[in-house]
């Protein structure tokens, strides 16, 4: 790199790091101080551009930054210290990695001369995080720092996004050099394809136009690729059914009549049946994972043709053979599809598509999400349904943890816009819900943020109630408390002969008192008739964090269910 002549002052590595963050337009960084990052914290103290959010555990720092990124189109930023700071962050990093979320994690490291000496709070951060980052760097020379920061942001946000870790030894933070931040960076080994191959797109359209039983299946790629309007246009032009994965919810409006619900292990009957029986499948920004298509051998259909659009070539033909692969940015590819469709006169065969919709209508008639609405015990589904009814017109974001409550939230809350549903899809990390809600609320201070969780998940990051108090983040926690690790209990009931090994949550805290001790508002609701008033009360408290502890039916299960290793059409229904 060449520096243009001029007066430049020497800055320390810590100052350079903060200047790089300011250059990247970083609003918030989530972190926790420690010995190896003290020079950096000193610089945080001296500046005002980047606001530091102090979490109570490094895992939550990464989750909050991850949710900040999911709910905006920006890169989340984390700062942790060496050793345990990094290892605590690993769960958060892996969560972001599995869902392709752009996060830059800056970690302190022991001084370069101490690396490898088993120094206090030393861990091989690059080695520990290697399998769960898009890329990582150890900056050994202050001269490489600024360009490494640029690369980190570039890598995190482009192509298939993902977390990037920059490990900065303490002596590099205090060393000095001239600061120069490059406008852009190019890497010979990294050139993600953006534009889809137009011949392949033509081929795909021809297949779609000839389809008798078409299906459009979209994932997190549509959300992350900001392609929701283009998807809506395509689906409406073609008149085909559309399903979303758990990660893809909100990518297509859930209240649109062409939406057949989520698919997969706990997907709707109609979505899974249409997926299994279609003759042409268009997959967009999705990866055919085991929770979505079940067993690939069972999913396979000789006559079905599959078109797969994805920015990551390695996602294509990984679990299922694809007939028409299209590598590219989903938005660009969908725009090109819409252009080619608009330019031509061909449209799908209306008779065939009508017959197909009739079939889907029949499947819909199965009413696969039904549950006992007259129960004397609170049904968890009813809480989510009520939550949806009361908040659907608000500027609303919903986060969740992992388990039954997550599936009910996905099934019963209708997301019409992308980036509104924030959950850990790939890694399935219990404990994300509360830190996710905090990250979202910081990004959208005027919006309403609800965290649908369970009494097991919420305890995995419960300490963040303190962070919420410090920064006055009035998130609404909807705790579906069934005194069980519900999803574990469900699997034990179905597949392990009702032996509920260690899945009962004994010695639960009084969540109302617990919440109050952090300075928030707590409510306990145990009668169905109190659900709606409680929700109304909670959401009317604009400035308070409210913890609603709903005592729900202990034996309720999530239906439909495709048992692990089974095929999509082998659902267990209510």
């Amino acid at each position: 790199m060449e520096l243009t002549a001029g007066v430049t002052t020497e800055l320390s590595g810590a100052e350079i790091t903060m200047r790089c963050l300011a250059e990247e337009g970083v609003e918030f960084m989530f972190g926790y101080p420690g010995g190896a990052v003290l020079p950096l914290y000193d610089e945080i103290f001296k500046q005002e551009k980047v606001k530091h959010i102090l979490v109570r555990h490094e895992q939550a720092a990464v989750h909050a930054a991850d949710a900040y990124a999911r709910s905006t189109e920006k890169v989340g930023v984390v700062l942790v210290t060496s050793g345990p700071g990094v290892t605590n962050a690993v769960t958060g990093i892996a969560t972001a990695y599995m869902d392709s979320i752009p996060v830059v994690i800056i970690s302190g490291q022991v001084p370069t001369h101490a690396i490898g000496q088993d120094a206090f709070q030393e861990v091989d951060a690059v080695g520990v995080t290697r399998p769960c980052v898009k890329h990582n760097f150890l900056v050994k020379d202050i001269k490489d720092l600024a360009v490494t920061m640029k690369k980190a942001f570039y890598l995190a946000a482009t192509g298939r996004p993902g977390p990037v870790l920059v490990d900065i030894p303490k002596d590099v933070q205090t060393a000095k050099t001239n600061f120069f931040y490059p406008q852009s960076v190019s890497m010979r080994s990294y050139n993600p394809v953006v534009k889809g191959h137009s011949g392949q797109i033509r081929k795909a359209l021809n297949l779609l136009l000839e389809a008798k039983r078409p299906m459009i299946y979209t994932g997190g790629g549509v959300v992350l690729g900001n392609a929701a309007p283009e998807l809506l246009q395509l689906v409406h032009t073609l008149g085909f059914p559309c399903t979303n994965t758990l990660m893809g919810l909100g990518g297509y409006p859930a209240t649109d009549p062409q939406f057949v619900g989520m698919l997969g292990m706990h997907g709707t009957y109609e979505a899974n049946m249409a997926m299994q029986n279609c003759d042409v499948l268009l997959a967009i920004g999705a990866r055919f994972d085991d929770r979505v298509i079940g067993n690939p051998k069972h999913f396979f259909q000789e006559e079905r043709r599959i078109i797969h659009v994805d920015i990551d070539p390695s996602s294509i033909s990984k679990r299922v053979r694809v007939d028409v692969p299209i590598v590219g940015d989903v938005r660009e590819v969908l725009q090109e599809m819409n252009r080619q469709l608009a330019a031509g006169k061909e449209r799908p065969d209306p008779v065939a598509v009508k017959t197909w919709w009739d079939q889907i209508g029949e499947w819909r008639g199965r009413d696969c999400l039904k549950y006992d609405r007259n129960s004397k015990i609170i049904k968890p589904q009813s809480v989510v349904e009520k939550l949806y009814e009361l908040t659907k017109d608000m500027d609303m974001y919903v986060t969740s943890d992992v388990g039954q409550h997550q599936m009910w939230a996905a099934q019963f809350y209708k997301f019409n816009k992308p980036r509104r549903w924030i959950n850990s899809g790939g890694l399935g990390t219990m404990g994300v819900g509360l830190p996710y809600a905090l990250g979202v609320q910081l990004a959208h201070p005027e919006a309403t943020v609800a965290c649908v969780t369970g009494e097991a998940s919420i305890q995995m990051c419960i300490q963040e109630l303190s962070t919420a108090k410090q920064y006055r983040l009035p998130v609404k926690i909807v705790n579906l408390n069934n005194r069980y690790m519900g999803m574990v209990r469900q699997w034990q009931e179905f597949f392990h002969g009702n032996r509920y090994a260690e899945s009962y949550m004994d010695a639960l805290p009084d969540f109302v008192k617990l919440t109050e001790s952090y300075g928030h508002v707590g409510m306990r609701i145990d009668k169905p008739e109190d659900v709606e008033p409680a929700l109304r009360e909670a959401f009317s408290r604009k400035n308070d964090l409210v913890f609603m502890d709903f005592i729900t039916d202990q034996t309720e299960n999530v239906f439909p269910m495709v048992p692990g290793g089974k095929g999509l059409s082998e659902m267990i229904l209510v």
Partner: protein
Amino acid sequence: MENEPGALSRVAGLFSARGYNIESLTVAPTEDPSLSRMTVVTSGSDDVIEQITKQLNKLIDIVKVVDLSDGDHIERELMLVKVRASGKDREEMKRMADIFRGRILDVTDKAYTIELTGTGAKLDAFLGALEQGAILETVRTGASGIGRGERILKV
């Protein structure tokens, strides 16, 4: 691949994390010191090889991946073998080394150290041809490969 610290562990880690075989792996800097070239010998179905290629390409440090077995290529591996060479075996060992175009690099009154270059199969054949008890020690580099003719891998 970029000649960066950690690049090798990214490749090795990818193979173990995704359950791919590594039969051998060789790596060294090229004439351009910023680049290293690695030859990996692996096995799997066409689908698996396609995934390995894609996953390798996804690594940020990897600049280019080619499947040498897609076309004609040359493959060479170097082996050093220490063999017992005393008494009546001594003459026989020398002859075997000559037949396989090996070179004797080091001689003591009890042993020869033989250098042999060739495909993995040739090296296996040499070891197979020796009386097993005569082999004292072997060390192999793993295969390096290059395309035949005009076919070049250049960045």
